């Protein structure tokens, strides 16, 4: 009956938007890359994955994303723990403060690091005026600059993911460990960190995929010599008109994105299982 099918009608506009303007365009771009000369073949992928220039960029993308993710975890754990132990009011303020940069434009945030790290930047000027160095250091347009900019971009996301999980860890759990003689660091590593795993995993998915697909940060802080997959897609598609390469990179980026989510989801369900059996 008509009445029973209202849900279908309600879904149509959303589905139409996503199928027509996300699924179809992506398939139109990616499917032909598996049949470059009208026949099914992986030759474009083979070419890409055996080219040392492209491989270097793929490697950099994974490396930068991984390092960014690790730094965000290392910085995020102690800070989130500290925030999660605050009183409700102050905690809210701290979280609001941490999320504010997320509302500012990525171009603005990358520009700030150009001002700090550049040849004429603040760090170089400061160190030269003190006499620490005589020549400006080359910090901008390096892989390190991309990592710094990416940590800056995504640390707030890691913080909010971690705080939301750590809030629910009871104080008594850690106090028990302390009363049994563990020192603060040991009890933090052996009790708080494992219990925060779900937050670490959610945060890692967001930070890794975010870094791997960010555009303005690698462009502005890495420059032409330190491209990542996202800047490579743009270069190939829009500047060199090499749509074959752009399609291959697009496919790889989608695979990476789903793979990271898949692996980390698998990890989290494994952790949940061991928790249950314990």
């Amino acid at each position: 009956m008509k009445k029973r099918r209202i849900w279908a009608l309600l879904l149509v506009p959303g589905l139409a938007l996503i199928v027509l303007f996300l699924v179809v365009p992506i398939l139109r771009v990616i499917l032909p890359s598996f049949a470059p000369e009208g026949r099914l073949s992986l030759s474009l992928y083979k070419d890409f994955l055996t080219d040392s220039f492209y491989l270097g960029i793929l490697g950099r993308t994974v490396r930068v994303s991984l390092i960014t993710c690790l730094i965000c975890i290392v910085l995020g754990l102690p800070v989130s723990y500290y925030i999660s132990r605050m009183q409700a009011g102050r905690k809210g303020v701290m979280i609001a403060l941490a999320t504010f940069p997320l509302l500012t434009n990525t171009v603005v945030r990358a520009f700030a690091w150009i001002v700090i790290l550049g040849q004429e930047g603040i760090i170089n000027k400061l160190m030269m005026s003190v006499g620490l160095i005589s020549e400006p250091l080359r910090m901008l347009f390096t892989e390190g600059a991309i990592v710094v900019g990416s940590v800056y971009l995504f640390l707030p996301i890691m913080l909010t993911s971690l705080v939301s999980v750590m809030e629910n860890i009871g104080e008594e759990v850690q106090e028990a460990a302390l009363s049994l003689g563990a020192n603060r660091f040991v009890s933090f590593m052996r009790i708080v960190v494992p219990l925060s795993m779900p937050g670490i995993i959610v945060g890692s998915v967001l930070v890794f995929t975010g870094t791997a697909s960010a555009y303005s940060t690698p462009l502005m802080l890495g420059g032409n010599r330190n491209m990542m997959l996202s800047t490579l897609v743009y270069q190939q598609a829009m500047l060199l008109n090499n749509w074959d390469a752009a399609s291959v990179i697009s496919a790889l980026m989608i695979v990476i994105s789903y793979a990271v989510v898949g692996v980390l989801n698998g990890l989290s369900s494994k952790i949940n299982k061991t928790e249950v059996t314990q």
Partner: protein
Amino acid sequence: MKKSKFLLIVTILVYFFIFAPLVLIALTSFTTESYIGFPPVGFSLKWYAKVFATKSFMDAFRLSAVVSLAATALALLVGIPGAYALSRYNFRGKQFIKDLFFSPNMVPQVVMGFSLFVFIIVALKLNVRIALLIGLAVSVVTYAFRIVGASIDSLDFAIEEAGMSLGATRATVFFRIVLPNISSGIVSAFLLAFINAFNNVPLTIFLSGPGVVTLPVAMMNYIEYNYDPTVSALSVLMMLMSVLIMAVSEKLVRAGGRAG
């Protein structure tokens, strides 16, 4: 209670790391010199005046504002009914549809940008502005599903049943009961979606053309050839806009919460 000094110091350092760059940008925007230096020299608002006098920024701002507003409205228009269907009805393939609705979060934005460029601009030969509008709507539609969906989930279905048992049609119930009760969710979704559409770079960089450049992309283009405090001033203005939007949202959500 004993509080660890170590944790306090790390927290202070991390918050310094988060805020120092933004404060720095703000400070350099008031300089009287024509270069970005620290500590800034003098005090003037001339770089703010220059932002408003730069035609490319003003054109880009207008385009970004209009297209982001339209895209956000479109995303909510298609997203709210979808979120309602997913929350209130059970049907086969629901999980699949849900995954599909959230897929814009999984696909890297540059990939979306490239494929939309090939599809809308090259194949369909549509106007760049239309491509921008559609692309941004796709990229923010998940906010409508997620945030509005969450507020529908938390709304007791018994209220709707009561309405219907008293003879109201499903549509009446939706507009008279559901919609007013989820208004704060809709406001949050609208503002978050708008901010994200407005700030988008990886998608909009593919969907630009002569005279059609969004503000963040115009800013990036400017930085490529200029290094002066105009960019600092523009950055501060954009930060102020975000703060203003969030403040308004907070107010509206609170007011909505009281009414509901």
